[in-house]
């Protein structure tokens, strides 16, 4: 339940960040994609199939808030989430730098998938600018690493708090 709530909070934050970035600069989606950051972060935490489901939901939400065909981001994010989660399981990715590299590759994979889908479905598809795509990869990697580190700290703090609380409860129990 707590995990679902956290995911929902993450989705709300992603929507808010996307809206805010668009409000600041209408070209910001070319450099920043908070949805894929959320997808990759979740994929680093959970197993591949739940990750794919998370990717589907996040992708469809992104489709609702972005232009283009509905289901485009859903498809790409599902694939990215499954792939990242599978790689994380296989290579035991835990170090921040590894997370950043994996997230950047995940971002690149998403861009490639999106471009491929668009080319196969739309006649007048545009190739993303290589410079912007590279920056977007870097931003995705760094942001995911930042979120991952912040979440680790939060979980550590929460664990310590829970332990303290349970120790206090044990001490307070009459023997």
């Amino acid at each position, binding site marked *: 339940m707590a995990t679902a709530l956290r995911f929902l909070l993450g*989705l*709300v934050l992603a*929507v*808010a960040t*996307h*809206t*805010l970035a668009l*409000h*600041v600069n209408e070209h910001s989606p070319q450099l920043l994609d908070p949805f894929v950051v959320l997808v990759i972060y979740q994929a680093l935490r959970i197993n*591949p*199939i739940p990750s*794919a*489901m998370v990717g*589907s939901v996040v*992708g*469809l*939400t992104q*489709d*609702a*808030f972005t*232009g283009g*065909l*509905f*289901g*485009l981001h*859903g*498809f790409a994010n*599902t*694939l990215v989430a*499954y792939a990242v989660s599978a790689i994380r399981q296989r290579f035991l990715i835990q170090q921040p730098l590894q997370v950043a590299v994996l997230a950047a590759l995940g971002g690149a994979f998403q861009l490639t998938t999106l471009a491929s*889908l668009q080319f196969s*479905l739309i006649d007048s598809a545009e190739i993303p600018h290589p410079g912007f795509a590279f920056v977007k990869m870097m931003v995705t990697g760094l942001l995911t690493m930042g979120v991952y580190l912040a979440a680790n700290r939060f979980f550590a703090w929460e664990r310590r708090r829970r332990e303290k609380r349970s120790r206090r409860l044990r001490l307070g129990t009459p023997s």
Partner: protein
Amino acid sequence: MSERWNRLLLALLLLGHLFLLSTSPKTRGGPFERWILGLFGPVAGATAATSSGISSFFDSVKWVGTLRQENEELRQKLEEAQYEMARLHGIEEELDRLARLTSYTRAAGEVSFVADVVFSDPRSWLRTLVIHTGKERAERNQPVVTDQGLVGRVLGSSGGYAKVLLLIDRSASASAMIQRTRRQGLARGAGTSGLLLDNIPSRSDVRIGDRVVTAGLDGVFPRGLPIGVVTRVEPTQALFHRIEVEPAVDLGLLDQVYILPHEPLPASVRGELLDEEASADGNRP
């Protein structure tokens, strides 16, 4: 869950997305999409509103600086405008003054009315004319001219008639000046058909053929009316030249004259001048 099941589930998910893509309407707004938008739309709306509020706050902060600068510029422009206004006010006053002068000259050109000469006796001792003014009423000292130049001034009127004192009469005079040199003197009737120009110093440059016009200093005739042409200049041992002037107007050809408006000096000024004259007379031995 085995790897095969995982892959199957993933394939199903991807197929579901492909189905959505294939059924995605050309125009946006499918039911599923609308449902998501309805769910997360308020978040986006709240974010946009907050962002707008923040950006308007920063904009207003930025505007304060801009307004300050604009205020300074407007202040400077106002000062410049005030200076310009003062300058223009000065010019306006000068123009008024010039306009007054112009209107004075123009008044000289303006004709009050035209009168017919009904009686002329140039051979009489008193060189006068009688003119018929019709419904108009001529007043004392109104200048009488023709298109050639000065004739004289109105002595008095009665009904539709007025008597004009010609400039060639011995008792008539007008302040005059030589047009070329602006040297001022006094033109007076010689009693014959000619005029004399008095009070022109011997050292003054006067030539035969010089045009003589009214100087506008006598309070009767406006400046610039042609009086005549210098026909003779006699050098004397005295202080002044003796200058004979032929009138510009041929008095034997008069049949119509123009009566110009006369603007007498204000009573206060005239009174002061008369007082000064009286006192000057009283001081004389």
